[in-house]
């Protein structure tokens, strides 16, 4: 039963913590751009406002897609270990690939629901999002393969434990960590890689048709996604840590990503692919080679 409580805690933290962080990120971006920016709790306000409005539904698949997206994100967020074995809700199932693919359920649901809305903007946005996935996942997964190969496990909490004795992966395989971080920015859909959303270009892409509670639910889903993505990075490369340290590291990664993204312009879709399949992928393989040869710190 404790697993369930832990999972619920996961979700609660994911919700409040990440949405706050998103507000903070808006603030940071504003400051960089010499604006004052909204207060840090602005995102809570936005979500609750959205949830309370009367929405429009574009058919049952639209509803179903949103549910699937949120459901998938919730399921994934519930598995993520928060920095240590103790804060791992399901130690038998925290397999990296399970998480990655469970995570895809949310993406697929969202993509399906949004295309189901019948708006061409959404379809274009989804096609971009999927293409982008092809870009960032590849270097990320290669780096992750080398991590898992090195520690002979794909269980996240075991990886955290190994790092506790071996040192953070950030130090053990710095190249891999950097590649993973670059992929993380793509995963988060932050600035150089916000091609799928591209508000000025394709009217926020997938979100074009969202109204009222749908928007709200998807924002929540987005929060959970961020939790999963950044949380995984912290677990895998920054050695996790106790719950507090986990959150601190989380903030650091998040702020760093925000800082980077707030100064960069947007890639075009094929530029993004060429970028990811160029240096990061090459470095990822280099990293894998180092791991194979045992050239780790």
């Amino acid at each position, binding site marked *: 039963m404790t697993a369930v409580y832990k999972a619920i805690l996961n979700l609660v933290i994911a919700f409040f913590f990440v949405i706050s962080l998103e507000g903070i990120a808006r603030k940071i971006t504003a400051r960089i751009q010499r604006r004052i920016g909204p207060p840090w709790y602005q995102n809570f306000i936005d979500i609750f406002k959205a949830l309370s409005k009367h929405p429009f539904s574009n058919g049952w698949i639209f509803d179903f897609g949103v549910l699937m997206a949120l459901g998938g994100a919730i399921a994934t967020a519930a598995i993520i270990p928060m920095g240590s074995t103790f804060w791992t809700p399901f130690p038998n199932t925290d397999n990296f690939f399970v998480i990655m693919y469970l995570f895809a359920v949310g993406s697929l649901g969202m993509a399906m629901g949004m295309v189901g809305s*019948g708006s061409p903007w959404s379809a274009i946005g989804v096609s971009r999002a999927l293409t982008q996935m092809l870009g960032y996942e590849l270097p990320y997964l290669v780096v992750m393969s080398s991590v898992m190969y090195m520690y002979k496990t794909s269980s996240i909490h075991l990886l955290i434990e190994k790092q506790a004795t071996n040192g953070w992966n950030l130090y053990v395989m710095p190249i891999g960590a950097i590649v993973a971080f670059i992929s993380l920015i793509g995963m988060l859909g932050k600035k150089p890689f916000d091609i799928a959303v591209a508000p000025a270009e394709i009217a926020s892409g997938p979100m074009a048709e969202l109204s009222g509670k749908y928007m709200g639910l998807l924002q929540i889903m987005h929060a959970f996604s961020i939790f999963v993505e950044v949380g995984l990075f912290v677990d895998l490369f920054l050695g996790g840590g106790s719950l507090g340290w986990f959150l601190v590291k989380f903030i650091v990664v998040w702020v760093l990503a925000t800082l980077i993204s707030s100064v960069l312009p947007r890639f075009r879709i094929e530029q993004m692919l060429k970028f990811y399949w160029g240096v990061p992928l090459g470095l990822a393989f280099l990293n894998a080679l180092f791991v194979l040869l045992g050239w780790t710190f």
Partner: protein
Amino acid sequence: MFTLLVALLIFSVVNYFISKASWRVGSIINALIGSYLIFQVFTIPKGTEVTIGKFLGETLALQWTNAGFYFSFVSLLVIVAVMFFAIKWLDSQKHPAAFNMFILMVTAGSLGVFMAKDLITLYIFWEIAVLSSMLIIPMGKKESRKAAVVYAVMSAVGTYMFLYGAFMIYSRYGTFSMPEIAKNLANDPSTSFKVAVVLLIAAAGIAKSGIFPLHTWLRIAHGNAPDAFSAVLSGQLVKLGSYVLMISVAVFPSLKIFANLKLYSGVPAPNYFLIALGAASIIIGTLMAIKQDDMKMLIAYSSVANGGYILVGIGTMDPLGFEGGVLHVFNHALAAAVIFMAFASVVYRTHTKKISELGGLIHKMPITYIAYLFAIISLAGIPPMSGFISKWMIYQALVRKGMFITAAIAFFGSIGSFLYVFRPLAGVFLGQLPRKYKDVKEVPPIMWIPMLVLVAISFVMGVWPFPILQPIENMRADFGIAPSFKIADAQNWLVRGFSGSWNPVIVFNLFITGFIVAYILYTLFPKPKKVDLLKPHKEEGAPINIYTSGEFIYTPELYHYNTKFYAGFERMYEKHPSWEKLLYMLAKFFHDVGEWIHGWFFRPSPSAYTFWLAMTILIIFWVRW
């Protein structure tokens, strides 16, 4: 067993005449026979051996093994589903009687292949399956004629290489029986012979399961075959190839045979070669599938990619990789069958298979859509469908072996599969319904029930995979691939890998929980108003209320985004080299040589004949060998 096969073959001819009278009766009988066969495969005790007779002084025999059972079961699932599907679907076909006959022959041939104990029996039934399927393919549209030829030729290339290999084995060991060959090969000192033989045997599998470089027939054959038969082709016949590939690496224990030829992390060099081919197929299949506008060809290319997965998995000869590869046979069979049946339903109603001509069919064919959706979830390897399990296993194996490049290609194929399965989803089912399809109806239950049944099986096996994993475990034990290691741990509800495990039930529960939580949240908040996407179809001149930068939409089909869905990505490899063209060039080359021979030796005047006669005499006289 043999009587069963013979009875099937004979009955297939009988059924032709029954079907001539009433093809619907024939197809119902077919479906019933198929269902009976499914039960039948469970009743045959493992290890049963039947001698067929003597051929060329060698005993031909059938043997019921775990592998045979597994493959037969999977095949029958697909075939029977298609048989039920065909009961209604056939009324869109010109040759229903012949279809009924040949599909039964395909069944008999395939079962024979899985039952065969020796290579010759395997070859015989293999050819029966090829022949009968080859005769079904050209029943499709115009292009399908060419498809049948390409299919036959590619298949023959593989098959005859297989035959050559089989006879090479025979000339050395004097036996065709697979267990004995396995024993002999393991003790054979000549490495080059073993490599040659194993690769020759594998060639049949390569051709049949659409592995690079013999993959090109899948596009044209699967894309143009009669729609429901594409399901059998992709779901079942291609698996014959996987079976042969499995024979060439597992039944002939490659780890033992090539013990001195280990290339990298315990994978023998020939296996590595096969894995490389599999990886190439994944890349080609994925990239080509992404850019297809023809939905059947798209899935055909996906079959290439998935064939690659199976080969990569089996080729590693790692317990997880092997089991993943074999399980992927099941997953891909079901998923591809359902997808093709869904497409067949779409074509049945709309008479087109071009994604760019379709759209919004979810409003008209929701059940087909659901079937398709779950099938692609399985195909893309997303939990909780069973497709995930096999992919997980293959990844585990690749990562554990440190085969990073292969792993990267597998990842690429997996993410690429999201792209290509989404393309028909968005283009055909979602989005805006073209006006000409406004009166399209859902297909009748006899067509959608088989799809849903297959999807349900795949789903159940995704949540509780142990029933399907058990036969594979048995197989693995038969082949001696780390038999003590238990992957499917039904007691603890765990699927184990060497590096971590996971609990499919928990994953499913989480999934459901997430969904329920989301649903609760959904119901908590205000009810939505409906935007009727079909409004312009119902009332003349009524707009739909969706966001289009400030304009009302009266012509929804123009706002349906499905042409060049991944234009940005497709543009990157527009000018890719085409293997298919290369093969056509080869064919053209032979054709040209034929023309040359014809022009030089056969067409000309008596003078030329005299010339050749004189030259022959002179050459014989002076060369005389």
